[in-house]
């Protein structure tokens, strides 16, 4: 490789001599070919660029003999100089000999290349002559070939003609034989005869103007007509099975019989056959009860599963087969088939239903109606007037009864349905049926749908009253349903699902099932909605009472309070009743800071009694801003209270919700009124009374306290002559009342 490059470099170097380039600047001519050489042998340009030009580097491009000499002369001792000189001359000699070897080698190669080229030139000249000869010969060959084919053409044509005539004759022969064959096959192998006729028909029709052909055609027509006649008679036979029927009709179609007529014929035949099967099934059923009274029918001749099995294999199978062949025969036009099949299927299902209804020994077992019935019972039990002194059935009892009977009913229904998966039932072992049935029908369609429906129905009681005019559900029912839904979420749903999965094991590849947690979430949402609604309904009832009492009273002209107003007592009574009601079904729940109840209450009492009216500053004309400052600062430290907010599933939370709604209503109503001095005092008394009795129901008594403080502050604002009552008097009145 190195040698070759060097060689080419030398060659081009020779060609690019100053003489050859003709007057171009000599340096350029030389330097260009030197480039590759330099790149090959010399230090890389990159290196050169990196190192600073060193004139003393003997191999470097910037070598300057003068500088080198002076440097060497001045730096080195004599011995070293001499050694250096010897080394240099040795190196030069070695380089000289290398160069000579290279030059010699290259020269040799050049010589041999010249020889080769010369030889090639001679060979080519010889080859040219041979090619000319070849061309001449080829021309001669093609000329003679043309002559030969011209000579043969005529004979070839005659041969082809003869072959054509022979083929025609063979066809004619076949045609002439057609009637014979048809006759032979018509009796035994109608299908083969048809094929034969189909092939011949077109030709015969085309040449029918020739008398001889016409004779053949007529004859074969006659035979085919006869065949068609035979087929038709056969078609009317009763004993044809669906396959033969199909074949028969197919052949008739090939004979170009009218399709309309045939399809009708086909359907009527098929109909007759299916009717027969239906009749057979019907025969197993006891005669439709015309007498009306539900006399218990004789035990049916066959088991229900047998019945269904037979029905699905015989009737449904035949129907499918016939429908399939109808489509194949008469194309996509199913206008006639559909009503036909539908009518038959309807009758079949009617029969099935009749059979199934015989099976229902236990009357109407629909889960949904059962549940609604239970609910109706509960509702009645709740609404029934209770004789004084005698408690009606407690809510927990009602709940337990309801839950148990619904669950029992669900189990019973599952047990009925399980019959379908019994091992000895033929269709139950079909994988298609089993997967579909267990998952889609039972788990999703029955169990999941029932739970969903239950939640929805329960929710309906909460959402329903929005429809104006509909009778609202009694609050106790809401509470009961909330608890029921909550129980479902906690345990019942997972129990039911486990039970179902055990009895109806789902297939691996079956359709996706609704996961239990999703159902639980639905049940929980329903429970939450119901409980929230309960709080709203009860809160609204109490609030309504308070609102009316504030709106209808004349607060300006009222007399000095002697008593707690009756409505406040009623409020406390109602809330106590609600507390009892909720307590029957829900846990107590946690109360915040219960231990310090009494102390804080004492403090608030104390503070309001010491400074007669904490709102006093607002009456001094000098500081109208102080009230704001005071109430704002107070508000800064109290959390914002959401009045109608979701509650938790415990008694305290429910009661807190109701109390919040009631007290906020009181606040808003007081703000809309103008009070006299005694009006304010009445509010003071009422507020104290409420606080005395309500704090123990709330999760955080500060909520009650805060709201009542706001009521008191607002009442003071709305008072023309704000002179609060002495606290001891307030306490006295409350204790007495």
């Amino acid at each position, binding site marked *: 490789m190195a040698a070759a490059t060097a060689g080419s470099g030398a060659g081009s170097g020779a060609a690019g001599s100053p003489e050859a380039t003709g007057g171009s600047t000599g340096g350029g001519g030389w330097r260009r070919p030197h480039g590759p050489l330099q790149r090959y042998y010399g230090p890389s340009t990159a290196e050169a660029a990196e190192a600073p030009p060193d004139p003393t580097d003997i191999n470097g491009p910037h070598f300057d003999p003068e500088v080198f000499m002076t440097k060497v002369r001045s730096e080195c001792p004599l011995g070293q100089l001499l050694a250096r000189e010897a080394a240099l001359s040795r190196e030069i000699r070695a380089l000289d000999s290398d160069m000579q070897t290279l030059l010699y080698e290259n020269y040799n190669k050049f010589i041999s290349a010249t020889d080769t080229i010369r030889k090639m030139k001679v060979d080519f000249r010889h080859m040219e002559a041979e090619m000319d000869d070849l061309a001449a010969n080829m021309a001669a060959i093609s000329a003679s070939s043309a002559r030969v084919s011209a000579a043969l053409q005529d004979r070839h044509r005659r041969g082809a003609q003869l072959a054509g005539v022979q083929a025609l004759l063979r066809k004619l022969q076949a045609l002439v034989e057609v009637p014979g064959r048809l006759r032979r096959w018509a009796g035994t192998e109608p299908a083969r005869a048809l094929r034969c006729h189909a092939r011949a028909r077109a030709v015969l029709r085309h040449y029918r103007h020739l008398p001889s052909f016409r004779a053949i055609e007529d004859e074969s027509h006659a035979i085919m007509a006869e065949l068609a006649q035979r087929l038709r008679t056969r078609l009317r036979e009763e004993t044809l099975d669906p396959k033969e029927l199909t074949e028969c009709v197919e052949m008739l179609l090939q004979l170009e019989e009218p399709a309309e007529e045939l399809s009708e014929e086909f359907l009527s035949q098929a109909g007759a056959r299916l009717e027969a099967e239906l009749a057979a099934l019907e025969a197993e059923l006891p005669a439709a009860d015309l007498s009306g009274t539900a006399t218990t029918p004789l035990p049916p001749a066959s088991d229900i599963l047998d019945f269904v099995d037979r029905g699905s294999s015989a009737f449904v199978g035949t129907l499918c087969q016939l429908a399939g062949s109808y489509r194949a025969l008469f194309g996509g036009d199913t206008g006639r088939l559909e009503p036909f099949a539908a009518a038959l299927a309807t009758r079949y299902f009617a029969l099935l239903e009749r059979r199934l209804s015989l099976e229902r020994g236990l009357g109407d077992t629909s889960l949904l109606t059962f549940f609604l019935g239970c609910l109706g019972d509960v509702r009645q039990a709740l609404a029934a007037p209770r004789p004084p002194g005698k408690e009606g059935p407690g809510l927990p009892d009602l709940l337990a009864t309801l839950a148990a009977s619904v669950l029992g009913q669900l189990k019973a229904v599952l047990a009925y349905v399980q019959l379908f998966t019994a091992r000895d039932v033929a269709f139950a072992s079909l994988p298609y049926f089993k997967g579909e049935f267990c998952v889609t029908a039972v788990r999703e369609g029955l169990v999941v749908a029932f739970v969903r429906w239950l939640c929805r129905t329960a929710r309906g009681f909460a959402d329903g009253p929005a429809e104006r005019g509909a009778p609202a559900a009694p609050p106790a029912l809401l509470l009961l349903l909330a608890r029921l839904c909550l129980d479902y979420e906690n345990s019942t749903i997972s129990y039911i699902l486990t039970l179902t999965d055990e009895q109806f094991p789902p297939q691996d590849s079956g359709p996706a099932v609704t996961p239990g947690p999703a159902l639980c979430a639905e049940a929980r949402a329903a429970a939450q909605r119901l409980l929230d609604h309960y709080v709203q309904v009860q809160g*609204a009832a109490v609030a309504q009472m308070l609102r009316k009492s504030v709106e209808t009273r004349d607060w300006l002209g009222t007399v000095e309070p002697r008593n707690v107003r009756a409505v406040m007592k009623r409020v406390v009574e109602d809330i106590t009743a609600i507390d009892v009601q909720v307590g029957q079904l829900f846990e107590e729940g946690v109360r915040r800071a219960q231990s310090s109840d009494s102390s804080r209450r004492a403090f608030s009492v104390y503070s309001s009694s010491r400074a007669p009216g904490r709102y006093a500053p607002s009456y001094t004309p000098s500081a*109208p801003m102080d009230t704001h400052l005071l109430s704002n600062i107070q508000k800064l430290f109290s959390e914002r209270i*959401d009045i109608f907010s979701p509650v938790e599933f415990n008694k305290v939370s429910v009661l807190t919700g109701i109390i919040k709604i009631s007290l*906020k209503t009181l606040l808003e109503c007081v703000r809309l009124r103008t009070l006299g001095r005694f009006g304010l005092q009445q509010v003071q008394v009422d507020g104290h009374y409420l606080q005395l009795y309500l704090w123990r129901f709330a999760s955080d008594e500060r909520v009650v306290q805060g709201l009542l403080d706001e009521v008191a502050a607002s009442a003071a604002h709305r008072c023309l002559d704000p002179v609060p009552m002495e606290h001891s008097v307030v306490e006295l009145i409350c204790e007495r009342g």
Partner: protein
Amino acid sequence: MEDDAPVIYGLEFQARALTPQTAETDAIRFLVGTQSLRYDNQIHIIDFDDENNIINKNVLLHQVGEIWHISTSPADKGVLATCYNKTSDTKVMTCAAVWRMPKELESGSHESPDDSSSNTQTLELLCHLDNTAHGNMACVMWEPMGDGKKIISLADNNILLWDLQESSAKAVLSSSTALEGKGQLKFTSGRWSPHHNCTQIATANDTTVRGWDTRSMRQIYCIENAHGQLVRDLDFNPNKQYYLASCGDDCKVKFWDTRNVTEPVKTLEEHSHWVWNVRYNHSHDQLILTGSSDSRVILSNMVSISSEPFGHMVDDDELSDQEDQHQEEKISVYRPFRIKEPLQDSVIATYEEHEDSVYAVEWSSADPWLFASLSYDGRLVINRVPRALKYHILL
């Protein structure tokens, strides 16, 4: 941007009455009436300088009593009506009167905001609406878009239509009707419809909303049990003539088509206490403002029942212009219409600047993107529609 922060103004007294200055269409100005039983009541004229985010106030004395309702003339910037309580030792009577504010305050001129409280001015009484025979005044409504000559007031169970004559110096009762029924019926609020040539009003009493024709003074529709509890306020959609919003003590806001009153068109349930106020935006009726005694103000986007249910459509001409301008956006706007993202009804924002019950919310009459809310403790908060939504609606 920082100037989206709410602006808060505090009054010294409790307040329930708030109204924009209806006849003013350039400056953002609200009127607030105070409630104090022991001091002279005031009407604060609140000027909001949108550019500098500054509030300027002028105070007018309203010595006759505490203000329960306030409304301004749609034609004359200086004229307003108030419902106020006249209290004696044994009786409280709510009366109504029409007033004129001093000329120089009409367009909000003010020398120095600092000492404006010292030289408070007084309203000039134009006329009383004599209600001695009719009971307590609940509210006064001006004929929308009218010449400021017709007002309707609701007094207990009466609807009274007044003609203001002699440049409002005399109020003549031109017609009236009374709502009859069992029990003590009392109107709580009412709204005058801007549609049908201003011949319809709607009133609320207890749980019922009723529509009335002002020409015959007959009831034209009645929504029984519109809310589970008391109905507190109403408003008409300014752009869709049969649409009406109501709110009440069941924490709900309901939207009605008055041609079919059996079912509400939509129901909103966002507040956690009584909803006292509902207001349609004057220009973009999908924007609904509600104020509640849960101390919150909620701005909702009810686009599905608004007059622009599919957003603002951009037609082809406009589109090609845009394309010329924004070559780089070409691909994204190759559509026949530009319909914005799926339009859904939603709560846009909940404003929690109040610490007491909010009894009044109002849109500005000048700037459709600005509104004020007033809570009982006298705190007035001015807020804006969020910028992103504003551009979404406009562009």
